[in-house]
């Protein structure tokens, strides 16, 4: 066994995992509150990335400092993604609260197609290079072969976002309202919680984390097009389910486990079947823990 090879795969899996995690967090939050597989979540991530690309290239012409560009375009990406998320909820999901769950799923699929083609038509179907907004850190020079500064930023951001979300949900009023809504929306409403507001806030937060993901991941891969949200969304969904959908630490853990599965599967077997490993692993986990690694078992009350 070559230990350094193992270690490199481990780190690579971790990078992948943290990328998935940034998207999976939003997925899992929305699911936790309204039990909807938000198929269009990946598109929000894509729109965040696109907004950052647009803003940063406009600012690029002004010759602004690159850190400032990163901050401004990041903030605007978060703002616009959140706005898209909230608007999408109002249009495509809110009228369907009482409808069969499959209807909401189809509405989400429709939204996903709409947003993809909206960006395709308004911008371009081609891949565009995404500027390297994150500078190379000097202190990473000795280990740059193993860990790039973008990777480090992604890892740190994932950790910070997860901690902030956990604090938000555990300790704030809004968080309590969210938990109450996810447990029993009807009851929460009776207790005077404005569940419409809670759901909107959830979408805003979920979309904001997706936007952060969009900006960071695009700087990591250096390119984007209108379609990047689809695969990333599916993977994040798998990660969220793996960890136990609805659970925030679960989403992060699930993402890392998925990242490692893919990384080790590729490294020790073959990348031909990368996704197959991921899905088979998911299946095995679900057979033994039908609610995911950290998911609460949802026994029906009889």
């Amino acid at each position, binding site marked *: 066994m070559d230990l350094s090879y193992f270690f490199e795969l481990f780190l690579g899996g971790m990078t992948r995992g943290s990328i998935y995690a940034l998207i999976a967090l939003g997925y899992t939050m929305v*699911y936790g509150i309204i*039990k909807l*597989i938000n198929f269009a979540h990946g598109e929000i991530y894509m*729109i965040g990335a*696109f*907004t950052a*690309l*647009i*803003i940063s*290239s*406009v600012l690029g012409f002004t010759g602004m400092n690159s850190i400032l560009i990163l901050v401004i375009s990041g903030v*605007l990406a978060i703002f*616009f993604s959140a*706005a*898209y998320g909230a*608007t999408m909820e109002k*249009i*495509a999901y809110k*009228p*369907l609260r009482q*409808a*069969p*769950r*499959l*209807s909401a799923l*189809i*509405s989400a*699929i*429709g*939204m996903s*197609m*709409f947003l*993809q*083609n909206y960006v395709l*038509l*308004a*911008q*371009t179907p*081609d891949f*565009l*290079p995404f*500027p390297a907004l994150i500078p190379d850190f000097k202190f990473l020079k000795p280990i740059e072969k193993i860990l790039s500064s973008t990777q480090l930023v992604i890892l740190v951001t994932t950790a910070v976002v997860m901690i902030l979300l956990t604090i938000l949900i555990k300790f704030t009023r809004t968080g309590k309202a969210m938990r109450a809504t996810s447990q029993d929306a009807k009851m929460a409403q009776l207790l005077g919680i404005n569940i419409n507001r809670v759901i909107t806030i959830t979408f805003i937060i979920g979309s904001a984390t997706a936007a952060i993901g969009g900006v960071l991941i695009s700087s990591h891969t250096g390119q984007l097009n209108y379609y990047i949200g689809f695969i990333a969304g599916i993977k994040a*969904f*798998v990660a969220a*389910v793996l960890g136990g959908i609805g659970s925030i630490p679960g989403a992060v853990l699930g993402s890392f486990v998925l990242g490692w599965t893919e990384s080790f599967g590729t490294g020790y077997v073959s990348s*031909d*079947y990368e*996704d*197959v490993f991921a*899905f*088979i692993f*998911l*299946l095995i986990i*679900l*057979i033994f823990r*039908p*609610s*995911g690694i950290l998911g609460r078992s*949802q026994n*029906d009350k009889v």
Partner: protein
Amino acid sequence: MSNLMKYFSLKEIKKSLVMTLWFMILTFPIMVIKVNTIENTVIWRWGYLAVIAVGSFILSTLWRYMMERKSLQAGNESKISLQQKLRELGEKNPRLKRGALAAVIVLVVAYPFATSMYQTGIMTTALMYVVLGLGLNIVVGLGGLLHLGYAAFYAVGAYTYALLHVHFGIGFWVSLPIGAGLATILGILIAIPVLRLRGDYLAIVTLGFGEIVRIILENWNDFSFGPSGIANIPRPTLFGIHFKLQQASVFIYFIMVALVVFTIFIVRRLENSRMGRAWIAMREDEIASQSMGINITKTKVMTFAIGAFWAGMIGVVFAAKTTFINPASFTLWESVIILCIVVIGGMGSIFGVVVGAGILILLPEYLRAFSQYRMLLFGAILVLMMVFRPGGIVTNVRKVYRIDKDKTGEAE
């Protein structure tokens, strides 16, 4: 119509203006600024802002009007479904029913002769999706199991025929039952490990299963010829007669008509049988149905298997129709489109699936005039359809049993 006037009141106009402003902000970066980081150019398209402004003003007003209409309608529950109306009409006038039936038959038979080969091809595709929709309807609509990997069974059918032809020279008619049978077996195999999973967990695992099948077909060259696919698959023959292109397309059309009739016949019989009732009971309440003596394991495996059967069968037809298959035809989107047919049409309803397939398959074809806006409109239509008619176009009606009063009287 009179309450439409109120949307011209100051208050409503103000609401629309707020929405307009919101959408102008929302769409600003993506609509107005077009960047090209390859050429390093930025184009400002202020004109689009005006389009967005006018468009969202009108749409926002229209939206609120429609929403209000919808909530008004929600009040009166006694909405009779289209299917029920038709059925009642048919019962009242048996002659009308027979006449309509005859007209439909004439239309169906005459269609390929009246139109071009292209139109026949499109209609054949639509008919294929009718059967696929009916098959998935058993799993999703009747069994209540959210299945996102249905295209895998479709692929099994297509590859069965293609590979049987390549290796053994076996023809269409022999492959048809084999393809359906293999898909059924695969349906059973996938059902067993996922028995314990519910709802969305089932959805993601079936999605994964569909992807696994596709990836295997892509990677395992020795078996499936990989991504370059299998070409020159023969079209169906009739008693050894090979048809010319035009005739063959008409022939496949009639094969599909026959298969649609066959499917509707079987599915109708199943849905009102002991087994069909068990499927619906499982959909309605798994625990209660188990407590009423239904073997959930067996029922679930059955829905998966029978659902897969149709996909396998149509897969064989698909291979024969396109004469070329590769794994790219069996992606997740394929499964999603079939699911959309079931849900848009109206879950659990045969008539609904027929309508859904018609809309979803023919609409994009006729939306071709809008070429690049096609998928955009398609997405928007899916959302609007669900928002304004979440139960699908056709709401399902259960069989009405007539009881022979005298008989039960005797039994007492």
